[in-house]
């Protein structure tokens, strides 16, 4: 009998403890641990708190909720956190805004957490969503119309910035005439997403090869690199043209190669009659694929490219096995840097992508905004999000703190307060502009007038010129012949082209695009590897159309 009672007691104790704990922690539901600095803001300030224009102060203070994605690069000074930092102080003291984070999650799981949160009914006042999510929310009438709000409350700089791509991104966020999201323009967006060619300059010299001005040059260089021992170590351990298994992204991509043939994979283009067609099935793709399969057959492309993602390609670069690959503007700062650390004698140069006849190529550009800031319908202070955007631009870009350094820029210890701001909308071309300013300043030998971030790069470049080898990575990106010089060239000549379809995924796209992409990638890989003849491309095009491609094309044209 005693045992039975004991068992019962133990079991009920366990359950009670569990329930008691939940009761205690119930009050913590949804909040993060760090208390806000200073007085907690009043309960939403009441509807009497209003502002009339950009950068006004709310009195009494208001509270708005949002959610955040953070990542490993978010580092804080002692005692600071995402809820308590230089921005939160500014918001509170200067503008009467308290931003409360309902939750904070690692970037990699943001989409999951956001969707689940929405499904459970936890919707913050404002948040970042992608095109599809924006569409769904707008269909349910859950978003505020931001058009008039932007007009009244957006600062001039914000408005200017949002139009830097001629309104493409704003367009993408407009449904039935209503602007439902503010695009999150990204640093290094737009023209800075164009690809370029990275080459080992010392290898070119060793083998007396020309700089790549045409596709034939690229092929010549690739073949020589693969066969003629460019690093002169008497070992047959180098590859020709770098190619990663994903084909069209990151380092080791061949998107730029295809662009040289006027082929545009994974993108929608306008044909001669003004209709939208899909780049991956156009005949120009066939020409480019054929060239690649020849290169593979001749052993100029690594036989194992199909198992190598860009990390493995980076390893080959670092280990002096790869000296020619297409890549993006920021690769030099980490991928080629590793090689330079290992081999201080290595020299790298960057070139614009090339075409068969040497004429200018139109590089394919990524969308200027993939994410949008939206405001929940019925939020008490819908304009607050726009105000926050204003504040970011005002304090980060428009204010000069000289002679003190800008308090928001990244510091030596890795703390980068600029990133803590909840509404990050950066000028697309901030780095490109910085590059230009830096070149001017270097010509004049005077960098004192430079703002952020140009001043950072100017300093690094000057240090390198003075002998600090650690700063080499800055030259490969921001130096006179660095990757930005290529972007500069593209921009000056207005060469980049964007995806002609900027809308959210159409119904058939959601259903079938993944299968089509799989089929596409498989086919292309097989053709390159020689496991399928080039004529399979035509088969692919037919199948693609039948398996949903035609349907998608129709829907896409309907939407535009």
């Amino acid at each position, binding site marked *: 009998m005693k045992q039975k009672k004991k068992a019962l007691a133990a079991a009920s104790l366990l359950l009670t403890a569990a329930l008691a704990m939940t009761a205690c922690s119930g009050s913590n539901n949804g909040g993060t641990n760090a208390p806000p600095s200073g007085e907690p803001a009043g309960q939403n300030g009441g509807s009497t708190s209003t502002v009339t224009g950009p950068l006004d102060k709310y009195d009494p203070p208001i509270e708005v909720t949002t959610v955040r994605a953070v990542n490993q690069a978010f580092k804080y000074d002692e005692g600071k956190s995402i809820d308590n930092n230089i921005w939160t102080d500014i918001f509170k003291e200067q503008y009467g805004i308290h931003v409360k984070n309902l939750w904070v999650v690692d970037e990699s799981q943001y989409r999951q957490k956001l969707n689940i949160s929405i499904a459970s*009914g936890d919707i913050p006042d404002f948040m970042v969503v992608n095109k599809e999510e924006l569409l769904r929310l707008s269909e349910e009438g859950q978003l505020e119309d931001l058009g008039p709000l932007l007009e009244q409350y957006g600062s001039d700089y914000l408005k200017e910035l949002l139009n830097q791509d001629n309104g493409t991104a704003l367009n993408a966020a407009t449904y039935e005439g209503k602007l439902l999201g503010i695009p999150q323009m990204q640093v290094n967006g737009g023209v800075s997403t164009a690809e370029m060619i990275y080459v080992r300059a010392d290898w070119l010299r060793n083998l007396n090869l020309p700089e790549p001005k045409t596709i034939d040059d690229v092929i010549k260089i690739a073949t020589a690199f693969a066969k003629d021992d460019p690093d002169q170590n008497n070992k047959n351990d180098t590859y020709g043209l770098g190619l990663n*298994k994903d084909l069209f992204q990151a380092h080791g991509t061949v998107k730029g190669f295809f662009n040289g043939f006027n082929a545009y994979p994974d993108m929608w283009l306008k044909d001669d009659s003004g209709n939208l067609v899909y780049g991956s099935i156009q005949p120009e793709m066939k020409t480019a694929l054929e060239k690649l399969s020849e290169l593979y057959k001749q052993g100029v492309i690594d036989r194992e490219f*199909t198992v190598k993602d860009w990390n493995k390609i980076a390893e080959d670069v670092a280990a002096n096995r790869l000296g020619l690959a297409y890549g993006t503007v920021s690769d030099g700062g980490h991928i080629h840097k590793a090689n330079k650390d290992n081999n201080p004698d290595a020299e790298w140069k960057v070139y614009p992508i090339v075409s068969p006849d040497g004429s200018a190529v139109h590089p394919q550009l990524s969308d200027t905004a993939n994410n949008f800031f939206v405001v929940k319908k019925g939020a008490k202070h819908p304009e607050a999000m726009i105000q926050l955007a204003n504040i970011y631009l005002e304090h980060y870009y428009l204010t000069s703190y000289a002679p003190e350094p800008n308090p928001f820029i990244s510091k030596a210890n890795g703390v980068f307060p600029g990133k803590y701001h909840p509404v990050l909308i950066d000028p697309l071309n901030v780095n490109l502009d910085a590059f230009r300013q830096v070149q001017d300043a270097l010509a004049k030998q005077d960098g004192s007038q430079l703002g952020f971030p140009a001043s950072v790069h100017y300093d690094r470049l000057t240090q390198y010129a003075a002998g600090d080898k650690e700063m080499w990575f800055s030259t490969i990106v921001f130096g006179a012949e660095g990757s930005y010089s290529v972007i500069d060239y593209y921009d000056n000549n207005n060469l980049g082209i964007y995806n002609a379809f900027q809308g959210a995924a159409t119904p058939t*796209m959601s259903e079938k695009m*993944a299968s089509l992409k799989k089929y596409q990638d498989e086919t292309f890989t097989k053709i390159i590897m020689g496991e399928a003849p080039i004529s399979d491309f035509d088969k692919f095009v037919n199948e693609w159309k039948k398996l949903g491609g035609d349907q998608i094309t129709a829907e896409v044209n309907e939407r535009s």
Partner: protein
Amino acid sequence: MIKNWRMQIPLHLMLIPGLAAILIFSYIPMAGVVIAFQKFVPIKGIFGSEWIGLDHFRYMVQLPNFSQILWNTVFIASMKIVAGIIVPVTIALLLNEIRREGYKRMIQTLIYLPYFLSWVILSGILIDILSPSRGIVNQLIQLLGFDSIFFLGSNDWFPYTLVISNEWKEFGFSTIVYLAALAGINPALYEAALVDGASRWKQTVHISLPGMMPIIVLMATLSIGNIMNAGFEQVFNLYGPAVYESGDIIDTFVYRIGLEEAQYGLATAVGLLKSVVSLFLISVSYFLAYRFANYRIF
């Protein structure tokens, strides 16, 4: 007639905490499986999303590669299940023959280690080791006079590479269960057999194996429930377009669909399908074992 119901009460009471826990944390959330039949949109929630019945299942079956994906999944999973029994049982028996306790324990610990590494890390290592040009495995193969094999890049080899590398990672885990089973066999049985002049081999076949059989059957049955789980994390980190044909499994495909849009309805439908298949197979195993061996697996 119920034997001594008073005796039974403590037993029923003991079950209460477990039942309460699964009621709250398994059965209540299970109601959400209804998402599999909805065109689920997060903002609409479960109660607001449109009911579409079996549409997700129809969509799956009509996918151009569905039979290929299904085949890959079942083929790879089955091989993993079989290997997952044979290898650990064999290793457990071999380990049992080691007389030196200290050495035995060391081996036991070491073989358990790979279980802790994630496929994210292991894939990088594996790609290097299996590289046709620079990998150590192929260097050995070439020494033996054969051509190098593109383990991760060829459809002929990819599934087997998956199974073997997975087994290498996981076998230490199951070996533990079988060692525990061996430890539970009455030593007197072995002594009696020795007296009868049985060789070690005979002892293994007539005592060890039968002694382990209940556990083996149990583990086999439980793993059959995994027939549709070919191992997302492993495949995802090791595959590429070149081996989609043999390596794309249900989970990796559903993952790629999820990139376009948050396809919770479809993902839940896939999960439901997997569960139903698992339930069916486990029930059949349970029934067969009971009917023919009078053995209740659980």
